[in-house]
């Protein structure tokens, strides 16, 4: 049983039911006075239906403008142990692979200097440490760097790039997402730690169109693996699916193809690859028989964001196909051109997607020196932004 400092009837209610409960998890650490005050403050917020946190300010570690999100309670006299409750973002390893030793190291550092509460992982992809005081920030940073970790991004900077675990675990990865993610993280250390943009800029890398990191909806620059030749078909495996009888290939595969490019005559499966939109449905339901083509690369999309200052945007295609191989010079040239333009002409708190909407994609493409392509559509099955005189 936890030694509760405050009665928390409303929070207790959130522990009921079969689903995971953040209250239950917080209470596991309730021996800490900081966590007890957190529960008390949270209960107060539920009672009064008002948040009691302020965020921002001057907190950080010397030389860095990102990685620490200052958080203060507006009831410091009543809940003194959470009067400062800063969040720290720690740059996660690509694909979120850890050794158990690394996880213990992180938890030990956090137990020594913070509340012990973590969020593995935040929506940015970072390891998130929840709740510490200003005086603990430099010691935490020193210990993290000594253990080989660094802070992630926050504020108007390039946010910590993230990726799916790609070729490490998935046969559908069309490029090495982990290598790409690590490369951009190392290349853009200055942009990650020293905010110089109008607002945040997120890069997320998915190995195939399944887009397991949801980059198309969440990142300013989304890099999604794809292929430009034919889907690979193993006719023997197709036959096995048909004979097993668990999958109705005609109805569940050909019938659900969004562009109706699959033909199934009961024995042979044929695909009109020129009209395939790479939705991955057929590959997902027949993984033993179908796989992405051999000529693999990525599509680069631009402009997604969640609703903050303005409404949500989905990313739209910027580069239909690019071979993604180290040292990724073409991608870096593109990033530099976009950042130069947006950093100079973007309004305060204007994401790059909103900037493109304001100036128009045609002007944006002209300024960054990219030729328009018919694949540049606002959303699937719409006309491109660019109109051609044929």
């Amino acid at each position: 049983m936890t030694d509760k400092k405050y009665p928390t009837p409303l929070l207790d209610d959130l522990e009921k039911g079969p689903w995971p409960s953040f209250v239950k998890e917080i209470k596991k650490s309730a021996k800490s006075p900081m966590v007890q005050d957190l529960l008390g403050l949270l209960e107060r917020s539920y009672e009064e239906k008002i948040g009691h946190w302020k965020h921002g300010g001057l907190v950080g570690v010397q030389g860095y403008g990102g990685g620490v999100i200052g958080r203060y309670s507006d009831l410091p006299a009543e809940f003194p142990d959470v009067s400062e409750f800063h969040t720290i973002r720690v740059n996660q390893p690509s694909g979120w692979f850890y050794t158990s030793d690394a996880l213990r190291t992180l938890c030990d550092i956090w137990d020594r200097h913070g509340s012990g509460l973590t969020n593995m992982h935040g929506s940015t992809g970072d390891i998130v440490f929840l709740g510490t005081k200003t005086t603990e920030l430099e010691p935490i940073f020193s210990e993290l760097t000594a253990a080989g970790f660094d802070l992630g991004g926050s504020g108007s900077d390039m946010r910590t790039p993230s990726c799916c675990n790609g070729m490490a675990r998935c046969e559908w990865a069309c490029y090495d997402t982990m290598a790409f993610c690590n490369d951009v993280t190392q290349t853009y250390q200055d942009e990650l730690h020293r905010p110089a943009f109008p607002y945040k800029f997120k890069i997320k890398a998915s190995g195939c169109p399944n887009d397991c990191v949801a980059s198309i909806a969440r990142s300013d620059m989304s890099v999604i693996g794809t292929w430009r030749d034919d889907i690979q078909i193993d006719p023997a495996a197709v036959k096995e699916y048909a004979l097993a009888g668990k999958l109705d290939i005609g109805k569940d595969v050909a019938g659900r193809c969004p562009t109706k490019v699959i033909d199934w005559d009961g024995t042979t499966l044929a695909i009109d690859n020129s009209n395939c939109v790479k939705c991955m449905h057929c590959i997902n339901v027949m993984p033993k028989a179908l796989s992405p083509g051999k000529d693999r690369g990525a599509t680069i999309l631009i402009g997604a964001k969640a609703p903050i200052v303005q409404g949500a945007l989905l990313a739209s295609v910027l580069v239909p196909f690019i071979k993604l191989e180290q040292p990724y010079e073409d991608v870096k040239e593109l990033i530099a051109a976009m950042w130069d333009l947006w950093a100079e002409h973007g309004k305060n708190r204007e994401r790059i997607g909103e900037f493109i909407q304001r100036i128009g994609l045609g002007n944006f493409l002209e300024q960054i020196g990219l030729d328009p392509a018919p694949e540049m559509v606002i959303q699937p099955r719409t006309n491109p932004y660019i109109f051609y005189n044929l």
Partner: protein
Amino acid sequence: MPAQTPESVADAMYAMLKDYAGKKNLKAMDLTKAMIEKFGDDCDKQLCKSAIRILMDDARCTYSYVGGSYVVLNPDYGK
């Protein structure tokens, strides 16, 4: 005009930040644009980037977050 160095641009940025303190928050790009306007061809974005880094590393300035990220005078500098 003499060729600028990261240190001289950092000093000019610091002076600008002092002038604007309490009146307007400045972003890194605001400082960069002002320095390029002030020094012309003797200054560029890369030089400004290095200058801001100098201001941060010697603790004369720090970053603040007020909706966006700004470069501000470090209230603890010299204490």
